[in-house]
């Protein structure tokens, strides 16, 4: 799939902008803070999963009352026009071929993007939340219908936490416990469904990740585990090796841990275990050495390579599963890599379908081979021939 055309109105620092993109390699060059990343962000928004940056409150250009993003996406034999409107204080609206769709997540059935930017190092170094979000997004990109699992889980978690927080409610204590038992059951069921989807997604991602890490790092190994205080390690390992998971088994495991922890959860006023506390453990090894925790022992370069391998593996997995190459958005990645890794990455990108890269260096490697080059200067985009 690829985006043929992108047009913006009152989006971030752009009053108006329009770009024709090549199905292959596209390069956006310009100095810092000119709006290159904003273009990648707009492309990512077309996939209906929200901004890859932390908040999307600032999408609307200062002084404007709404922002518009238009994209023309080619997928297989279909050409689809996507229009998105963002207004402050309400959710984004989306049109496909000028017809409103019920929610922006419908767009994830049309466009799939993989975004990699300088912040992505936080996949290794940052908080568990970023890693959970990465994996949860992969799950939805693989099968958009799975969005429901996440939505249900978020809601159950909020309700159960609200109940624990407001403990003890006035009135009959037996009623309170009976209510908690009902939410425990919902929590165990929704949590098990999400964890099962995560394990399946991670298991599918792993082989691609190992291959990419070796290629970019020129040897060495990456291992990723799923860390959870309620799942047995043996079960996690088996499922990551591809064994069929029984959601009922996960549900029972979560339910029985909830029973053990009940008094502590009531005392603390929040859910203490479950998928909302789980994490990915990334371990790396140089050639011939044993794997070590990437977060505490990896060098900056190794961590960056690990994060890049995860993202490229996401790309590979999606290409494999969707029978379509996702759109690859690489934000300023070359400047952070040493020359050898740069070369191996720019070789790799060449046969990865549509890729849009940004760089601050006018003579950046790749600019000679890019099919389309745009120059970005303070909210203006000009094509360079």
């Amino acid at each position: 799939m690829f985006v043929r055309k992108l047009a913006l109105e009152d989006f971030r620092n752009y009053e108006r902008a329009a770009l024709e993109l090549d199905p292959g390699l596209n390069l956006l060059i310009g100095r810092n803070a000119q709006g290159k990343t904003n273009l990648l962000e707009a492309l990512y928004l077309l996939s209906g999963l929200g901004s890859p940056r932390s908040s999307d409150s600032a999408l609307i250009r200062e002084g404007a009352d709404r922002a518009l993003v238009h994209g023309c996406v080619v997928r297989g034999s279909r050409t689809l026009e996507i229009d998105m409107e963002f207004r402050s204080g309400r959710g984004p609206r989306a049109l496909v071929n000028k017809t409103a769709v019920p929610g922006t997540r419908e767009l994830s059935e049309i466009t799939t993007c993989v975004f990699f930017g300088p912040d992505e190092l936080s996949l290794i170094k940052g908080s568990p939340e970023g890693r959970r979000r990465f994996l949860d997004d992969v799950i939805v990109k693989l099968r958009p219908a799975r969005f429901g699992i996440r939505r249900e889980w978020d809601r159950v978690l909020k309700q159960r936490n609200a109940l624990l927080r407001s403990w003890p409610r006035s009135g009959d204590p037996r009623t309170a416990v009976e209510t908690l038992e009902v939410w425990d059951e919902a929590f165990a069921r929704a949590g098990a469904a999400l964890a099962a989807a995560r394990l399946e997604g991670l298991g599918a991602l792993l082989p691609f990740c190992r291959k990419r890490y070796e290629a970019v790092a020129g040897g060495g190994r990456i291992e990723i585990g799923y860390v959870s205080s309620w799942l047995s390690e043996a079960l996690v390992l088996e499922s990551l090796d591809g064994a069929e998971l029984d959601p009922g088994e996960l549900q029972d495991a979560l339910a029985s841990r909830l029973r053990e922890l009940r008094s502590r959860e009531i005392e603390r006023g929040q859910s203490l275990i479950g998928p909302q506390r789980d994490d990915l453990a990334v371990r790396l090894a140089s050639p011939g050495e044993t794997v070590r925790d990437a977060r505490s022992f990896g060098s900056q370069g190794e961590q960056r390579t690990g994060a890049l391998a995860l993202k490229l593996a996401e790309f590979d997995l999606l290409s494999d599963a969707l029978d379509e190459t996702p759109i690859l958005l690489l934000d300023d990645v070359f400047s952070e890599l040493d020359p050898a890794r740069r070369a191996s990455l720019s070789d790799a990108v060449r046969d990865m379908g549509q890729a849009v890269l940004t760089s601050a260096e006018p003579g950046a490697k790749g600019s000679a081979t890019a099919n389309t080059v745009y120059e970005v200067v303070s909210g203006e985009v000009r094509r360079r021939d």
Partner: protein
Amino acid sequence: MYAEPIQRLIDELARLPGIGPKSAQRVAFHLLKLSEDDAGRLADAIVDVKARVRLCDVCFNVSDQELCEYCRDDRRDRTMICVVQEPPDIVALERTREYDGLYHVLQGHISPIEGIGPEDLRIAELLERLKAPPGSPEAIQEVIVATNPNIEGEATAMYLGRLIGPLGVKVTRLASGLPVGGDLEYADEVTLGRALSGRRRIQ
């Protein structure tokens, strides 16, 4: 700022569900343009509905008498109770003409976020209605739980099931699954999963 009576009207309208400040303003200025008669009719309707409508003593449906029309109706099957969240749910079920039993309106669902627990709903009153000894002519044989198929509705249904099951009354839940006339391909995974686990043998 508008003159005090206008601002007061806007503020009152903005407290209604689904009406934000902008809609409130639009409605307020529409009301200003009404003739004296039209405005009076609207105001009377609001006052009248508060004065004359009450909740049914038995099932908590809205009614203009002590008992609502379903509780009064002798032709209905008095051994079945269908439990719903709100009175409009009864209207929806009645439209099907598939059900001729009694109703019970909980007046909400269990939702800790909104601070609503079982004791805030008409659950104790429902249990009271189930007290007739089994075998007696007034005994309820089946309770159909027709709460919404969302997280809160499911939790409420689960809660009722745990409470009523031990009383020896049959408790059933409305089936949930695929919309009629829909496409399997576009069903979300949660709905489809539920439809699969609730599958039925073809007769």
